[in-house]
């Protein structure tokens, strides 16, 4: 699996409380780390693939200058590989396949020839090995005392358009190294995790007479119809307690936002505007943000659920048609130019409700579907550039972007 890392922004660090402010610091202050493979099982191709995933993970946690060289040694060798003797840290691991076929990983983190962290993982199915790599990076990040990267262990669910009116819904890790097609055939879009545990999800089917919302329980293997609506039927957001959904429906041809109660299966209309109101996101229990064209172009607004008052949230950008919110921070997609042939058409921007600063997060291509991690540490997004569709990660507090390209098809929407 070829993983392409693209460092879009200058490598820098961010200080200060406000994530919308950039302060630049040189990269060479990051400690170096090398990786040594001591595996005795699996093919060289498999081992090299795993090594690349691990390098990617260590890069993404943004704590080290990661040496890209693949080196091998005995696991119990008392010394690090000669070429690594000047490295601040060395991560040595071995992959072992059990007689039962289980995948085992044992690793130790070495500093000054002392083992400072060691752990062992075992899974029955080796196809999930990339998640073990993510877990190793998560461990090391936690050991180093950095802000949590819990999102690394989360799964991404996305829809991939493979032909006109044909799509697949895929579950993957955040690097797209692991991919499993979970809904195949038909025209199914806008998947959305139903719970924090990621064991069920909603999606829109456009194969029936009316756009329909389905609920899939992965553990039970069931797929059930929840709702249908003429025109549009999309689950835009799920509340933190998984009890409420924000839906975009258009039962009379008019796209508006509805609040759906999962327990009672009843819904009520939240917005009423003769233009376009879509893409509601929970800001808190009683307030949402959404996209509306009530100013004549798409922009981001907020609304309390118990009043009709609507407030404009974004004052920069000609066409702001997608957003995500975490606490006081809002990331949104803004059209930079109406020149269809520009290399720079849609970019992501970050604002804070408490300041007037705007931070531009991307620089080229069409960047859309921003989605905060639950802890707000990172933003996942879709990038389409030169016929290549990728999933991107923005580490806000480290001012770094990473791209993981899709092998085929075009990412239509995603959630994590």
């Amino acid at each position, binding site marked *: 699996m070829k993983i392409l890392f693209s460092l879009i922004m200058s490598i820098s660090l961010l200080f200060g409380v406000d994530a919308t402010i950039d302060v630049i610091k040189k990269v060479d202050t990051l400690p170096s780390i090398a990786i040594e493979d001591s595996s005795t099982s699996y093919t060289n191709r498999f081992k090299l693939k795993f090594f690349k995933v691990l390098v990617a993970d260590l890069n993404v946690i943004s704590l080290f200058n990661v040496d890209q060289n693949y080196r091998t040694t005995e696991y119990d060798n008392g010394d690090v590989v000669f070429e690594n003797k000047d490295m601040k840290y060395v991560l040595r691991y071995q992959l072992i396949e059990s007689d039962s076929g289980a995948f085992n990983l044992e690793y130790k983190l070495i500093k000054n020839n002392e083992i400072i962290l060691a752990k062992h993982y075992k*899974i029955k199915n080796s196809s999930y090995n990339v998640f073990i790599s993510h877990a190793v990076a998560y461990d090391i990040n936690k050991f180093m005392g950095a802000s949590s990267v819990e999102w690394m262990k989360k799964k991404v669910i996305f829809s991939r358009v493979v032909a006109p009116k044909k799509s697949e819904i895929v579950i993957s890790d955040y690097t797209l190294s692991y991919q499993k097609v979970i809904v195949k055939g038909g025209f199914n879009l806008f998947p959305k995790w139903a719970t924090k*545990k990621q064991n069920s999800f909603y999606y829109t089917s456009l194969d029936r007479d009316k756009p329909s919302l389905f609920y899939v329980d992965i553990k039970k293997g069931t797929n059930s119809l929840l709702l249908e609506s003429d025109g549009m039927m999309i689950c*835009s957001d799920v509340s933190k307690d998984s009890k409420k959904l924000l839906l975009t429906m258009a039962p009379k041809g008019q796209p508006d936002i509805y609040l759906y109660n999962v327990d009672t299966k009843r819904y009520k209309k939240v917005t009423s505007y003769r233009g376009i109101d879509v893409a509601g996101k929970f800001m808190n229990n009683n307030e949402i943000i959404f996209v509306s064209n009530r100013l004549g172009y798409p922009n981001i607004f907020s609304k309390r659920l118990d009043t009709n008052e609507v407030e404009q949230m974004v004052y920069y950008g000609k066409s702001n048609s997608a957003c995500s919110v975490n606490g006081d921070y809002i990331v949104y997609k803004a059209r930079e130019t109406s020149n269809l042939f520009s290399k720079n058409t849609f970019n992501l921007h970050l604002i804070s409700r408490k300041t007037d600063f705007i931070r531009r997060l991307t620089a080229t291509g069409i960047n*859309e579907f921003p989605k905060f991690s639950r802890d707000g540490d990172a933003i996942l997004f879709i990038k389409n550039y030169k016929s290549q569709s990728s999933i991107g990660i923005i580490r806000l507090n480290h001012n770094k972007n990473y791209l993981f390209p899709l092998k085929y098809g075009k990412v239509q929407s995603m959630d994590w």
Partner: protein
Amino acid sequence: MKKLVIASVSAALLIFSGCSKEPKVIDPSENGDSMVEEVESVTTEIINGDNTMTSNSPISISVAEGKFNSVYFAFDKFTINSDMKDNVSNSATVANGVASAYNIKLEGNCDEWGSDEYNFALGLKRANAVKKSLISEGVDSSRISMVSFGESNPTCNDKTKECWSKNRRVDFKLLP
């Protein structure tokens, strides 16, 4: 019957709990959620002489669909331009003529500028604009349904303005 294949990845979900299961395959139709059956278009035959169908006779869906004119829109707009009025009027005539036995599904489409909900809503507003025009020309509103495919149903995939303009459209489909 076209089937959705749902493959459970419960094993992946349980990696860190140390439990694993073989992925399951289910057929959603078993749960009573019927999916639309995809059928071949009806083959038509042209017959000369006394057996020729009159304009008021029901004709096959595919033949009737071919008589509608798609309606095209400007970039980021959902109002019907004056040069598209004839397409709408002609389609209203077809709807109340040779296609009068069928219901009409308006499919709103957009160019490739974005895949978010707003783009789908834009496609729907285009379909709704056509629906209102059809109603004003005498087509019964109860016969008309709408769907938006956003940018996911292009008729042209080139990176040109001409190509994109072909994708900003509303198509007419007939339902039995």
